[in-house]
């Protein structure tokens, strides 16, 4: 019997292409032309930032007063700053930190947001009410002023404890992530409220799955779509937040040239060295733009209600 059915089964499997949620999503994402462009640009930027410093071996802090404030040339493809330091090297190095801040802050905000949203949606009642009031409260806090306040109050202690680079990094990432989880919490809670009552969760419940298993195996994976979209946009927002902090001179110290920090140093020399500000600014803009387009593509790809064919 098994000899007869096996080829038939194989036949059926090859006739019907296997589809899954993720494969569908990838297909839809690829159809979003601008999202693919954004994805390519971002990939190129990440590659440049990761590999660049190994290929382009100019130190970021080599001072050369003879070559200060020079525009782009063969020796310095992006020109130099007021100390004659090579800008390409600094932009490449700074990109690492800016991108790392974006990704880590996003992970923090997604983790907090998902936990709070899941707890509120799953437990309901007084817990839900309290957690949502806290979310509302955080939503009405002005982000940048609070960010500035916290960085101002805690920076010295943390840098003393962990050194200037790690201390500021942890502080900036924690504060940005800690002030951006609210939309994710609301999204996840809304997803939980509707998913909790669906048949497949009911089936899991009636099969005796404990609540934690219901949440982790059945509800969370289905609530992930909007979280991924929000997460991608959060990376862009976190990069802007870090750049804003550094641009105000309150983020990373001058020897750590993040893109915002380079802009801060460049802003008083706009009239005779515009290239100094334009290159890091363009880097921030391109990164944020491509991440936003990717987020747009992901929204189209992961929202099953949307039929792209209709376009």
């Amino acid at each position: 019997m098994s000899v007869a059915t096996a080829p038939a089964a194989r036949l059926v499997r090859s006739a019907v292409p296997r589809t899954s949620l993720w494969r569908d999503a990838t297909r839809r994402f690829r159809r979003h032309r601008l999202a693919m462009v954004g994805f390519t640009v971002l990939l190129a930027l990440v590659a440049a930032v990761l590999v660049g410093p190994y290929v382009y071996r100019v130190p970021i802090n080599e001072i050369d007063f003879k070559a200060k404030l020079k525009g782009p040339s063969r020796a310095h493809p992006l020109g130099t700053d007021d100390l004659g330091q090579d800008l390409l090297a600094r932009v490449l190095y700074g990109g690492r930190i800016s991108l790392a801040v974006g990704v880590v802050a996003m992970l923090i905000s997604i983790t907090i947001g998902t936990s709070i949203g899941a707890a509120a949606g799953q437990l309901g009642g007084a817990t839900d009410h309290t957690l949502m009031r806290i979310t509302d409260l955080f939503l009405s806090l002005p982000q940048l002023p609070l960010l500035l306040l916290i960085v101002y109050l805690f920076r010295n202690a943390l840098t003393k404890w962990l050194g200037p680079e790690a201390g500021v990094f942890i502080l900036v990432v924690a504060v940005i992530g800690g002030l951006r989880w609210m939309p994710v919490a609301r999204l996840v809670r809304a997803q939980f409220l509707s998913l909790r009552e669906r048949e497949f969760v009911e089936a899991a419940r009636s099969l005796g799955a404990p609540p934690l298993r219901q949440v982790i195996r059945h509800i969370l994976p289905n609530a992930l779509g909007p979280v991924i979209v929000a997460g991608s946009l959060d990376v862009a927002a976190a990069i802007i937040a870090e750049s804003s902090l550094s641009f105000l001179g309150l983020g990373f110290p001058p020897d750590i040239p993040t893109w915002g920090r380079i802009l801060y140093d460049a802003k008083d020399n706009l009239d005779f060295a515009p290239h100094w500000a334009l290159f890091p600014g363009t880097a921030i803009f391109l990164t944020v733009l491509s991440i936003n387009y990717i987020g747009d593509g992901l929204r189209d790809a992961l929202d099953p209600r949307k039929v792209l064919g209709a376009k």
Partner: protein
Amino acid sequence: MSRYVLRRLLIMVPVIFGISLVLFTILALAPGDPFEELATNPNVPPEVRMNLRAKFGLDDPLPVRYARWLTSMARGDWGFSFVSRVNVETLIMQRLPTSLFVLGTAQLLGLLIALPIGTYSALRPYSIFDQIATTLAFIGFSLPTFFTGLVFILVFSIWLDWLPFIYRADIAATGWRWWWEHARQAAMPVAVLGLFQGATLTRFVRSAVLDVIRLDYVNTARAKGLSEGVTVVKHVIRNALIPVVTLVALQLPGIFTGAVITEQIFRVPGIGSLLISSILANDTPVIMAITFVFSCLVVIFNLVADLLYGWLDPRIAYR
């Protein structure tokens, strides 16, 4: 109506209370000592420092300190600026009107850009106009304000030499001349903020109008022979504005971010630049007060949004 406003006002109280609690917790958790400078100064004997600490109640238990801080904030006694030796509230009141003027004009500019463009885009989805507008909006809100600000200075002040890039509160001129100088110096900060707002809002307006335009009552309005203009303005836009108002209100904390940055770039003497200079000068009372003022502004504008909401959508009614 007045009962509705009163109820909304009462809801504001716990929110402001919560904000004050968050701010105080941050301050209390922060390491460091406001009298640290005295501690390192050999001319100040330790007893003087102890007396000062006792006078300001720094050694009291936290709940007592919180209660005292809250009551003095509520009484309008916000303390002294360490740096300029002026009452914090006078300092803030000097700066607040400029900030509100720039913010308000920028927000208005944003709406003036977003409403027509967003609506027109949604009326002809996927047309050339829509595609250009959507792309520009995307670029607009991906451009961080600190970068647009620098580019504007570069183009309009340095290359073209049209506009001043420093905002001055004391213009030595009267009459038309004063207005003209004022408009010239406000042009760039307002444009930077307003274009950013406009780009963000255009997307909101477009999707809100798209949601409304397919509904039955729009068809009814067209079927009964209303002109396109009346249909769009009275039936589509009014309904599309309801979610837009909510989004504008939710976005406000973000707008202040842009405001702090533009004030800093163009040296607008508002509370945003005051905040930055106070942070650089370690002026804790001013920093705390400004953060609190920003929070209160958010709460107040949320209230305004709620009132607008009731006006736009009579179903909500001022219950």
